[in-house]
Protein backbone atom coordinates (compact mmCIF):
# COMPACT_ATOMS: atom_id res chain seq x y z
CA UNK A 1 0.00 0.00 0.00
CA UNK A 2 2.87 2.30 0.82
CA UNK A 3 4.39 1.57 -2.55
CA UNK A 4 1.13 2.52 -4.20
CA UNK A 5 1.14 5.81 -2.33
CA UNK A 6 4.65 6.57 -3.56
CA UNK A 7 3.62 5.80 -7.13
CA UNK A 8 0.50 7.93 -6.75
CA UNK A 9 2.59 10.83 -5.44
CA UNK A 10 4.96 10.41 -8.37
CA UNK A 11 2.06 10.46 -10.81
CA UNK A 12 0.72 13.61 -9.20
CA UNK A 13 4.07 15.37 -9.60
CA UNK A 14 4.35 14.30 -13.23
CA UNK A 15 0.77 15.38 -13.89
CA UNK A 16 1.46 18.81 -12.41
CA UNK A 17 4.61 19.18 -14.47
CA UNK A 18 2.60 18.21 -17.52
CA UNK A 19 -0.03 20.80 -16.76
CA UNK A 20 2.41 23.61 -16.30
CA UNK A 21 4.17 22.92 -19.55
CA UNK A 22 1.08 22.49 -21.66
CA UNK A 23 -0.97 25.34 -20.29
CA UNK A 24 -2.01 28.58 -21.93
CA UNK A 25 0.48 30.60 -23.96
CA UNK A 26 1.03 32.98 -21.09
CA UNK A 27 1.90 30.32 -18.54
CA UNK A 28 5.59 31.00 -18.94
CA UNK A 29 5.13 34.60 -17.97
CA UNK A 30 2.92 34.32 -14.90
CA UNK A 31 5.68 35.44 -12.58
CA UNK A 32 4.85 37.83 -9.80
CA UNK A 33 4.96 41.42 -11.00
CA UNK A 34 7.96 43.27 -9.62
CA UNK A 35 7.49 46.98 -9.16
CA UNK A 36 11.18 47.85 -9.34
CA UNK A 37 12.20 49.43 -12.62
CA UNK A 38 15.74 48.11 -12.16
CA UNK A 39 14.90 44.60 -13.44
CA UNK A 40 13.51 46.11 -16.64
CA UNK A 41 11.75 43.01 -17.91
CA UNK A 42 8.57 43.42 -19.92
CA UNK A 43 6.26 40.79 -21.32
CA UNK A 44 4.84 41.41 -24.76
CA UNK A 45 1.65 39.54 -25.70
CA UNK A 46 1.74 39.30 -29.47
CA UNK A 47 -0.30 37.65 -32.21
CA UNK A 48 1.34 34.43 -33.33
CA UNK A 49 1.79 35.80 -36.86
CA UNK A 50 4.32 38.20 -35.29
CA UNK A 51 6.44 35.39 -33.86
CA UNK A 52 9.39 35.71 -36.24
CA UNK A 53 9.51 39.48 -36.62
CA UNK A 54 8.85 40.31 -32.96
CA UNK A 55 11.45 37.82 -31.73
CA UNK A 56 13.96 39.66 -33.90
CA UNK A 57 12.66 43.08 -32.78
CA UNK A 58 12.99 41.94 -29.17
CA UNK A 59 16.63 40.97 -29.66
CA UNK A 60 17.37 44.32 -31.28
CA UNK A 61 15.54 46.15 -28.50
CA UNK A 62 17.47 44.21 -25.84
CA UNK A 63 20.75 45.09 -27.56
CA UNK A 64 19.83 48.76 -27.80
CA UNK A 65 18.59 48.91 -24.18
CA UNK A 66 21.16 47.21 -21.93
CA UNK A 67 19.54 45.96 -18.74
CA UNK A 68 16.10 45.69 -20.28
CA UNK A 69 14.69 42.35 -21.35
CA UNK A 70 11.69 41.69 -23.53
CA UNK A 71 9.86 38.40 -23.10
CA UNK A 72 7.13 37.23 -25.44
CA UNK A 73 3.94 35.28 -25.20
CA UNK A 74 2.66 34.46 -28.66
CA UNK A 75 -0.85 33.18 -29.31
CA UNK A 76 -4.16 33.89 -31.01
CA UNK A 77 -5.07 37.57 -30.60
CA UNK A 78 -8.53 36.64 -29.35
CA UNK A 79 -7.07 34.36 -26.68
CA UNK A 80 -4.41 36.89 -25.66
CA UNK A 81 -7.07 39.60 -25.31
CA UNK A 82 -9.07 37.32 -23.00
CA UNK A 83 -5.97 36.60 -20.95
CA UNK A 84 -5.13 40.30 -20.60
CA UNK A 85 -8.63 41.28 -19.53
CA UNK A 86 -8.56 38.47 -16.96
CA UNK A 87 -5.39 39.91 -15.47
CA UNK A 88 -2.50 38.17 -17.19
CA UNK A 89 0.79 40.04 -16.53
CA UNK A 90 1.22 41.70 -19.92
CA UNK A 91 3.06 44.98 -20.53
CA UNK A 92 2.39 45.33 -24.25
CA UNK A 93 -0.32 43.89 -26.49
CA UNK A 94 0.26 43.58 -30.23
CA UNK A 95 -2.93 42.31 -31.85
CA UNK A 96 -3.54 41.00 -35.34
CA UNK A 97 -6.93 42.67 -35.38
CA UNK A 98 -8.36 46.00 -34.17
CA UNK A 99 -11.33 44.08 -32.74
CA UNK A 100 -9.25 42.17 -30.18
CA UNK A 101 -7.42 45.38 -29.25
CA UNK A 102 -10.81 47.07 -28.78
CA UNK A 103 -11.72 44.36 -26.25
CA UNK A 104 -8.64 45.25 -24.20
CA UNK A 105 -9.17 49.01 -24.55
CA UNK A 106 -12.83 48.85 -23.57
CA UNK A 107 -11.86 46.82 -20.49
CA UNK A 108 -9.69 49.78 -19.50
CA UNK A 109 -6.43 47.86 -19.82
CA UNK A 110 -4.94 49.97 -22.62
CA UNK A 111 -5.44 53.25 -24.41
CA UNK A 112 -4.36 54.91 -27.67
CA UNK A 113 -3.53 51.80 -29.70
CA UNK A 114 -1.49 52.57 -32.81
CA UNK A 115 -1.56 50.60 -36.04
CA UNK A 116 1.94 49.43 -36.90
CA UNK A 117 1.49 46.90 -39.72
CA UNK A 118 -0.89 45.34 -42.20
CA UNK A 119 -0.96 41.74 -43.37
CA UNK A 120 -2.74 40.09 -46.29
CA UNK A 121 -3.84 36.51 -46.73
CA UNK A 122 -2.11 33.88 -48.82
CA UNK A 123 -2.76 30.20 -49.44
CA UNK A 124 -0.07 27.83 -48.20
CA UNK A 125 0.21 24.34 -49.69
CA UNK A 126 2.75 21.56 -49.09
CA UNK A 127 5.72 21.81 -51.50
CA UNK A 128 4.40 18.89 -53.59
CA UNK A 129 0.94 20.49 -53.76
CA UNK A 130 -0.94 17.16 -53.43
CA UNK A 131 -4.33 18.84 -53.77
CA UNK A 132 -3.33 20.59 -57.02
CA UNK A 133 -4.42 23.93 -55.63
CA UNK A 134 -3.89 26.68 -58.19
CA UNK A 135 -6.36 29.33 -57.10
CA UNK A 136 -8.58 30.32 -54.23
CA UNK A 137 -11.62 28.69 -55.87
CA UNK A 138 -9.88 25.29 -55.68
CA UNK A 139 -10.31 25.46 -51.90
CA UNK A 140 -14.05 24.96 -52.37
CA UNK A 141 -13.51 21.50 -53.90
CA UNK A 142 -14.52 18.68 -51.59
CA UNK A 143 -11.38 16.73 -52.53
CA UNK A 144 -9.14 19.47 -51.14
CA UNK A 145 -8.51 19.26 -47.40
CA UNK A 146 -8.29 22.76 -45.99
CA UNK A 147 -7.13 24.00 -42.58
CA UNK A 148 -8.35 27.38 -41.38
CA UNK A 149 -8.02 29.36 -38.17
CA UNK A 150 -10.90 29.43 -35.69
CA UNK A 151 -13.51 31.99 -36.81
CA UNK A 152 -12.84 34.28 -33.83
CA UNK A 153 -9.09 34.41 -34.53
CA UNK A 154 -8.01 37.24 -36.92
CA UNK A 155 -6.62 34.82 -39.55
CA UNK A 156 -9.99 33.00 -39.50
CA UNK A 157 -11.83 36.27 -40.06
CA UNK A 158 -9.52 37.24 -42.92
CA UNK A 159 -10.03 33.83 -44.57
CA UNK A 160 -13.81 34.18 -44.27
CA UNK A 161 -13.58 37.58 -45.94
CA UNK A 162 -11.50 36.15 -48.79
CA UNK A 163 -14.06 33.39 -49.40
CA UNK A 164 -16.87 35.94 -49.35
CA UNK A 165 -15.03 38.11 -51.88
CA UNK A 166 -14.40 35.09 -54.11
CA UNK A 167 -18.01 33.98 -53.74
CA UNK A 168 -17.15 30.46 -52.58
CA UNK A 169 -18.01 28.24 -49.61
CA UNK A 170 -15.15 26.31 -48.07
CA UNK A 171 -15.68 23.42 -45.71
CA UNK A 172 -12.43 23.05 -43.77
CA UNK A 173 -11.41 19.77 -42.11
CA UNK A 174 -10.05 21.56 -39.06
CA UNK A 175 -10.22 24.95 -37.38
CA UNK A 176 -6.88 25.60 -35.73
CA UNK A 177 -6.27 27.75 -32.64
CA UNK A 178 -3.92 30.19 -34.36
CA UNK A 179 -2.20 30.94 -37.65
CA UNK A 180 1.03 29.14 -36.79
CA UNK A 181 -0.79 25.89 -36.05
CA UNK A 182 -2.71 26.25 -39.32
CA UNK A 183 0.64 26.59 -41.06
CA UNK A 184 2.00 23.53 -39.20
CA UNK A 185 -0.84 21.39 -40.53
CA UNK A 186 0.28 22.38 -44.04
CA UNK A 187 3.96 21.82 -43.24
CA UNK A 188 3.17 18.38 -41.79
CA UNK A 189 1.30 17.49 -44.95
CA UNK A 190 -1.91 16.76 -43.06
CA UNK A 191 -3.92 19.10 -45.24
CA UNK A 192 -3.75 20.16 -48.88
CA UNK A 193 -3.99 23.85 -48.14
CA UNK A 194 -4.30 26.43 -45.41
CA UNK A 195 -5.18 30.10 -45.47
CA UNK A 196 -2.48 32.01 -43.62
CA UNK A 197 -0.71 35.35 -44.04
CA UNK A 198 1.83 36.38 -46.63
CA UNK A 199 4.33 36.74 -43.78
CA UNK A 200 3.83 33.11 -42.69
CA UNK A 201 4.50 31.75 -46.16
CA UNK A 202 7.63 33.88 -46.35
CA UNK A 203 8.83 32.73 -42.92
CA UNK A 204 8.21 29.05 -43.70
CA UNK A 205 10.65 29.19 -46.63
CA UNK A 206 10.84 25.96 -48.60
CA UNK A 207 8.57 24.07 -46.17
CA UNK A 208 5.46 25.36 -47.90
CA UNK A 209 4.52 26.81 -51.27
CA UNK A 210 2.49 30.01 -51.48
CA UNK A 211 -0.47 30.50 -53.81
CA UNK A 212 -1.09 34.23 -54.14
CA UNK A 213 -4.68 35.40 -53.75
CA UNK A 214 -5.61 38.04 -56.36
CA UNK A 215 -6.02 41.53 -54.91
CA UNK A 216 -9.70 41.64 -55.92
CA UNK A 217 -10.46 38.66 -53.63
CA UNK A 218 -7.88 39.26 -50.93
CA UNK A 219 -8.47 40.65 -47.48
CA UNK A 220 -6.17 42.19 -44.94
CA UNK A 221 -5.95 42.84 -41.24
CA UNK A 222 -4.44 45.76 -39.32
CA UNK A 223 -2.09 45.24 -36.40
CA UNK A 224 -2.54 47.67 -33.50
CA UNK A 225 -0.12 47.85 -30.57
CA UNK A 226 -0.51 49.45 -27.12
CA UNK A 227 1.16 49.46 -23.73
CA UNK A 228 -0.93 47.83 -21.01
CA UNK A 229 -1.79 50.47 -18.43
CA UNK A 230 -1.62 48.17 -15.39
CA UNK A 231 1.67 46.63 -16.48
CA UNK A 232 4.54 46.79 -14.04
CA UNK A 233 6.98 48.57 -16.34
CA UNK A 234 5.04 51.16 -18.26
CA UNK A 235 8.01 53.26 -19.35
CA UNK A 236 9.88 50.35 -20.91
CA UNK A 237 6.62 49.13 -22.43
CA UNK A 238 6.14 52.52 -24.08
CA UNK A 239 9.74 52.47 -25.29
CA UNK A 240 9.12 49.09 -26.91
CA UNK A 241 5.94 50.36 -28.61
CA UNK A 242 7.90 53.37 -29.91
CA UNK A 243 10.63 51.03 -31.17
CA UNK A 244 8.12 48.94 -33.14
CA UNK A 245 6.80 52.14 -34.76
CA UNK A 246 10.31 53.53 -35.41
CA UNK A 247 12.04 53.17 -38.80
CA UNK A 248 14.26 50.42 -37.37
CA UNK A 249 11.24 48.46 -36.21
CA UNK A 250 9.33 49.02 -39.42
CA UNK A 251 12.32 47.77 -41.40
CA UNK A 252 12.17 44.40 -39.61
CA UNK A 253 8.44 44.13 -40.25
CA UNK A 254 8.74 45.05 -43.93
CA UNK A 255 11.51 42.47 -44.35
CA UNK A 256 9.14 39.87 -42.89
CA UNK A 257 6.51 40.71 -45.51
CA UNK A 258 4.24 43.06 -43.56
CA UNK A 259 2.84 46.10 -45.28
CA UNK A 260 2.61 49.61 -43.86
CA UNK A 261 -0.74 50.20 -42.16
Amino acid at each position, binding site marked *: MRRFAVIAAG*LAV*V*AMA*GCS*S*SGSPSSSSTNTPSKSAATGTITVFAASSLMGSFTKLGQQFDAAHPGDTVKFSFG*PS*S*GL*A*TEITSGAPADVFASASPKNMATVVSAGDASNPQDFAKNIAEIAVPPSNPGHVASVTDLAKSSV*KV*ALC*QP*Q*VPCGKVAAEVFKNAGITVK*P*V*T*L*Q*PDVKSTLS*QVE*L*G*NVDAGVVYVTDVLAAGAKVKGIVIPASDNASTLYPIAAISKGNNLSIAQQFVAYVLSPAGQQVLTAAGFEKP
Partner: protein
Amino acid sequence: MPAPLLVPALVAVAFLVLPLAGLLIRAPWSGLGKALSGSDATQALVLSVWTASVSTAISLVIGTPLAWVLARTSFPGQRLLRALVTLPLVLPPVVGGVALLLAFSRVGLVGRYLDYWFGLTIPFTPLAVVMAETFVAMPFLIITVEGALRSADQGFEEAAATLGARRMTVFRRVTVPMIAPSLGAGAVLCWARALGEFGATITFAGSFPGQTETMPIAVYYALENDPNAAIALSLVLLLVSVVVLVSLRDRWLRRGPVL
Protein backbone atom coordinates in the same frame (compact mmCIF):
# COMPACT_ATOMS: atom_id res chain seq x y z
CA MET B 1 -5.52 16.69 15.56
CA PRO B 2 -2.00 18.19 15.39
CA ALA B 3 -1.88 21.62 13.80
CA PRO B 4 1.15 20.86 11.57
CA LEU B 5 -1.03 18.32 9.80
CA LEU B 6 -4.37 20.05 10.07
CA VAL B 7 -3.29 23.41 8.62
CA PRO B 8 -1.73 22.06 5.40
CA ALA B 9 -4.70 19.74 5.04
CA LEU B 10 -7.07 22.70 5.20
CA VAL B 11 -4.94 24.58 2.66
CA ALA B 12 -5.19 21.57 0.36
CA VAL B 13 -8.97 21.45 0.76
CA ALA B 14 -9.29 25.16 0.04
CA PHE B 15 -7.06 24.84 -3.00
CA LEU B 16 -9.11 22.00 -4.43
CA VAL B 17 -12.54 23.37 -3.58
CA LEU B 18 -12.16 27.12 -4.26
CA PRO B 19 -11.86 26.87 -8.05
CA LEU B 20 -14.99 24.72 -8.18
CA ALA B 21 -16.76 27.26 -5.97
CA GLY B 22 -15.61 29.96 -8.38
CA LEU B 23 -17.14 28.07 -11.26
CA LEU B 24 -20.45 27.71 -9.42
CA ILE B 25 -20.52 31.34 -8.25
CA ARG B 26 -19.62 32.85 -11.62
CA ALA B 27 -22.04 30.58 -13.48
CA PRO B 28 -24.66 32.49 -15.46
CA TRP B 29 -27.48 30.54 -13.81
CA SER B 30 -30.33 32.62 -15.25
CA GLY B 31 -28.97 32.50 -18.79
CA LEU B 32 -27.66 28.95 -18.59
CA GLY B 33 -30.01 27.55 -21.22
CA LYS B 34 -29.25 30.41 -23.57
CA ALA B 35 -25.49 30.11 -23.05
CA LEU B 36 -25.63 26.39 -23.78
CA SER B 37 -27.83 26.63 -26.86
CA GLY B 38 -25.94 29.65 -28.18
CA SER B 39 -22.81 27.60 -28.81
CA ASP B 40 -22.10 24.27 -30.40
CA ALA B 41 -22.60 22.77 -26.96
CA THR B 42 -25.11 20.04 -27.75
CA GLN B 43 -23.08 18.89 -30.75
CA ALA B 44 -19.91 18.84 -28.68
CA LEU B 45 -21.58 16.97 -25.81
CA VAL B 46 -23.06 14.35 -28.12
CA LEU B 47 -19.70 13.88 -29.84
CA SER B 48 -17.87 13.65 -26.51
CA VAL B 49 -20.29 11.14 -25.03
CA TRP B 50 -20.31 8.78 -27.99
CA THR B 51 -16.57 8.92 -28.66
CA ALA B 52 -15.80 8.35 -24.96
CA SER B 53 -18.25 5.42 -24.94
CA VAL B 54 -16.72 3.84 -28.04
CA SER B 55 -13.23 4.33 -26.58
CA THR B 56 -14.34 2.62 -23.39
CA ALA B 57 -15.89 -0.27 -25.31
CA ILE B 58 -12.68 -0.72 -27.31
CA SER B 59 -10.64 -0.54 -24.11
CA LEU B 60 -12.83 -3.23 -22.50
CA VAL B 61 -12.55 -5.53 -25.50
CA ILE B 62 -8.79 -5.27 -26.01
CA GLY B 63 -7.61 -3.88 -22.66
CA THR B 64 -9.15 -6.59 -20.44
CA PRO B 65 -7.32 -9.42 -22.23
CA LEU B 66 -4.11 -7.41 -22.00
CA ALA B 67 -4.66 -6.94 -18.26
CA TRP B 68 -5.12 -10.71 -17.99
CA VAL B 69 -1.88 -11.31 -19.91
CA LEU B 70 -0.03 -8.92 -17.60
CA ALA B 71 -1.50 -10.40 -14.42
CA ARG B 72 -1.70 -14.12 -15.14
CA THR B 73 1.22 -14.98 -17.38
CA SER B 74 4.94 -14.43 -17.18
CA PHE B 75 7.39 -14.11 -20.01
CA PRO B 76 10.65 -12.28 -20.67
CA GLY B 77 10.14 -8.57 -21.18
CA GLN B 78 6.83 -8.51 -19.34
CA ARG B 79 7.91 -5.71 -17.03
CA LEU B 80 8.99 -3.66 -20.02
CA LEU B 81 5.66 -4.36 -21.70
CA ARG B 82 3.76 -3.20 -18.62
CA ALA B 83 5.82 -0.02 -18.51
CA LEU B 84 5.13 0.66 -22.19
CA VAL B 85 1.44 -0.02 -21.84
CA THR B 86 1.00 2.27 -18.86
CA LEU B 87 3.23 5.01 -20.31
CA PRO B 88 0.24 7.04 -21.60
CA LEU B 89 -0.79 7.47 -17.94
CA VAL B 90 2.18 9.71 -17.27
CA LEU B 91 2.87 10.95 -20.79
CA PRO B 92 1.65 14.51 -21.48
CA PRO B 93 -1.37 13.94 -23.75
CA VAL B 94 -0.06 16.41 -26.33
CA VAL B 95 2.96 14.13 -26.80
CA GLY B 96 0.56 11.25 -27.36
CA GLY B 97 -1.18 13.37 -29.99
CA VAL B 98 2.09 14.12 -31.76
CA ALA B 99 3.00 10.41 -31.67
CA LEU B 100 -0.38 9.44 -33.11
CA LEU B 101 0.05 12.08 -35.79
CA LEU B 102 3.45 10.71 -36.78
CA ALA B 103 2.02 7.20 -37.02
CA PHE B 104 -1.41 7.77 -38.53
CA SER B 105 -1.37 11.11 -40.33
CA ARG B 106 -1.57 11.20 -44.10
CA VAL B 107 2.21 11.20 -44.30
CA GLY B 108 2.72 9.09 -41.15
CA LEU B 109 4.32 5.70 -40.69
CA VAL B 110 1.11 3.69 -41.14
CA GLY B 111 -1.19 6.49 -42.27
CA ARG B 112 0.47 6.94 -45.64
CA TYR B 113 -0.47 3.38 -46.64
CA LEU B 114 -4.02 3.78 -45.34
CA ASP B 115 -4.26 6.89 -47.48
CA TYR B 116 -2.56 5.34 -50.50
CA TRP B 117 -4.37 1.99 -50.47
CA PHE B 118 -7.78 2.85 -49.10
CA GLY B 119 -7.95 6.64 -49.42
CA LEU B 120 -8.53 6.66 -45.68
CA THR B 121 -7.39 9.75 -43.83
CA ILE B 122 -7.73 9.43 -40.07
CA PRO B 123 -6.89 12.90 -38.72
CA PHE B 124 -9.79 15.37 -38.57
CA THR B 125 -12.38 12.57 -38.29
CA PRO B 126 -14.33 11.32 -35.25
CA LEU B 127 -12.27 8.12 -35.63
CA ALA B 128 -9.19 10.17 -34.77
CA VAL B 129 -10.98 11.43 -31.65
CA VAL B 130 -11.76 7.84 -30.62
CA MET B 131 -8.14 6.80 -31.23
CA ALA B 132 -6.73 9.72 -29.23
CA GLU B 133 -9.12 9.03 -26.36
CA THR B 134 -8.44 5.29 -26.36
CA PHE B 135 -4.69 5.91 -26.37
CA VAL B 136 -4.90 8.10 -23.31
CA ALA B 137 -7.71 6.34 -21.40
CA MET B 138 -7.18 2.60 -21.91
CA PRO B 139 -4.27 2.35 -19.44
CA PHE B 140 -6.66 3.39 -16.66
CA LEU B 141 -8.78 0.33 -17.39
CA ILE B 142 -5.77 -1.93 -17.79
CA ILE B 143 -4.14 -1.09 -14.46
CA THR B 144 -7.46 -1.25 -12.61
CA VAL B 145 -8.32 -4.66 -14.02
CA GLU B 146 -4.78 -5.98 -13.68
CA GLY B 147 -4.73 -4.98 -10.01
CA ALA B 148 -8.03 -6.78 -9.44
CA LEU B 149 -6.78 -9.90 -11.20
CA ARG B 150 -3.64 -9.96 -9.08
CA SER B 151 -5.50 -9.58 -5.81
CA ALA B 152 -8.29 -12.01 -6.75
CA ASP B 153 -8.19 -15.46 -5.15
CA GLN B 154 -6.89 -17.78 -7.85
CA GLY B 155 -8.24 -20.76 -5.90
CA PHE B 156 -11.61 -20.41 -7.63
CA GLU B 157 -10.03 -20.48 -11.06
CA GLU B 158 -7.94 -23.51 -10.11
CA ALA B 159 -11.01 -25.26 -8.73
CA ALA B 160 -12.88 -24.64 -11.96
CA ALA B 161 -9.92 -25.93 -13.95
CA THR B 162 -9.63 -29.10 -11.86
CA LEU B 163 -13.35 -29.67 -12.44
CA GLY B 164 -12.62 -29.76 -16.16
CA ALA B 165 -13.35 -26.23 -17.33
CA ARG B 166 -11.29 -25.02 -20.24
CA ARG B 167 -9.21 -21.86 -19.82
CA MET B 168 -11.61 -19.70 -21.85
CA THR B 169 -14.54 -21.06 -19.86
CA VAL B 170 -12.72 -20.28 -16.61
CA PHE B 171 -12.07 -16.77 -17.86
CA ARG B 172 -15.68 -16.20 -18.87
CA ARG B 173 -17.51 -17.98 -16.03
CA VAL B 174 -15.17 -17.44 -13.09
CA THR B 175 -12.60 -14.70 -13.68
CA VAL B 176 -14.81 -12.08 -15.29
CA PRO B 177 -17.67 -12.33 -12.75
CA MET B 178 -15.10 -12.21 -9.94
CA ILE B 179 -13.53 -8.97 -11.18
CA ALA B 180 -16.78 -7.48 -12.47
CA PRO B 181 -16.76 -4.59 -9.97
CA SER B 182 -13.24 -3.66 -11.04
CA LEU B 183 -14.18 -3.94 -14.70
CA GLY B 184 -16.98 -1.51 -13.96
CA ALA B 185 -14.76 0.85 -12.00
CA GLY B 186 -12.02 0.67 -14.64
CA ALA B 187 -14.53 1.33 -17.41
CA VAL B 188 -15.95 4.34 -15.58
CA LEU B 189 -12.45 5.76 -14.96
CA CYS B 190 -11.56 5.13 -18.58
CA TRP B 191 -14.76 6.78 -19.79
CA ALA B 192 -14.22 9.83 -17.59
CA ARG B 193 -10.63 10.20 -18.77
CA ALA B 194 -11.73 9.85 -22.40
CA LEU B 195 -14.47 12.43 -21.90
CA GLY B 196 -11.97 14.95 -20.56
CA GLU B 197 -9.32 14.30 -23.19
CA PHE B 198 -7.99 17.51 -24.71
CA GLY B 199 -4.30 17.52 -25.62
CA ALA B 200 -4.03 14.37 -27.71
CA THR B 201 -7.38 15.05 -29.37
CA ILE B 202 -6.68 18.60 -30.50
CA THR B 203 -3.20 17.62 -31.66
CA PHE B 204 -4.21 14.52 -33.59
CA ALA B 205 -7.83 15.09 -34.53
CA GLY B 206 -7.85 18.86 -34.93
CA SER B 207 -11.02 20.73 -34.17
CA PHE B 208 -14.16 21.11 -36.19
CA PRO B 209 -17.66 21.51 -34.73
CA GLY B 210 -19.65 18.27 -34.99
CA GLN B 211 -16.67 16.31 -36.29
CA THR B 212 -13.81 16.56 -33.82
CA GLU B 213 -14.67 19.42 -31.47
CA THR B 214 -15.26 17.65 -28.15
CA MET B 215 -16.55 19.29 -24.98
CA PRO B 216 -13.14 20.21 -23.51
CA ILE B 217 -12.08 21.77 -26.83
CA ALA B 218 -15.38 23.64 -27.05
CA VAL B 219 -14.79 24.98 -23.53
CA TYR B 220 -11.30 26.13 -24.48
CA TYR B 221 -12.45 28.03 -27.55
CA ALA B 222 -15.61 29.36 -25.94
CA LEU B 223 -13.45 31.08 -23.34
CA GLU B 224 -12.04 33.31 -26.11
CA ASN B 225 -15.40 33.98 -27.65
CA ASP B 226 -18.10 33.78 -25.05
CA PRO B 227 -16.88 33.20 -21.47
CA ASN B 228 -20.43 32.56 -20.23
CA ALA B 229 -20.78 29.68 -22.65
CA ALA B 230 -17.42 28.35 -21.45
CA ILE B 231 -18.63 28.41 -17.85
CA ALA B 232 -21.91 26.75 -18.81
CA LEU B 233 -20.09 24.01 -20.72
CA SER B 234 -17.73 23.52 -17.79
CA LEU B 235 -20.73 23.09 -15.48
CA VAL B 236 -22.04 20.31 -17.71
CA LEU B 237 -18.67 18.53 -17.53
CA LEU B 238 -18.55 19.09 -13.76
CA LEU B 239 -21.99 17.54 -13.42
CA VAL B 240 -20.94 14.52 -15.49
CA SER B 241 -17.83 14.14 -13.31
CA VAL B 242 -19.88 14.23 -10.14
CA VAL B 243 -22.20 11.56 -11.53
CA VAL B 244 -19.16 9.42 -12.43
CA LEU B 245 -17.70 9.85 -8.96
CA VAL B 246 -20.97 8.98 -7.25
CA SER B 247 -21.33 5.86 -9.38
CA LEU B 248 -17.79 4.82 -8.42
CA ARG B 249 -18.34 5.51 -4.72
CA ASP B 250 -21.41 3.37 -4.85
CA ARG B 251 -19.42 0.42 -6.17
CA TRP B 252 -16.68 0.93 -3.65
CA LEU B 253 -19.11 1.15 -0.75
CA ARG B 254 -21.07 -1.93 -1.75
CA ARG B 255 -18.31 -4.22 -2.89
CA GLY B 256 -15.36 -3.11 -0.84
CA PRO B 257 -12.16 -1.62 -2.20
CA VAL B 258 -11.38 -2.61 -5.73
CA LEU B 259 -8.59 -0.32 -6.83
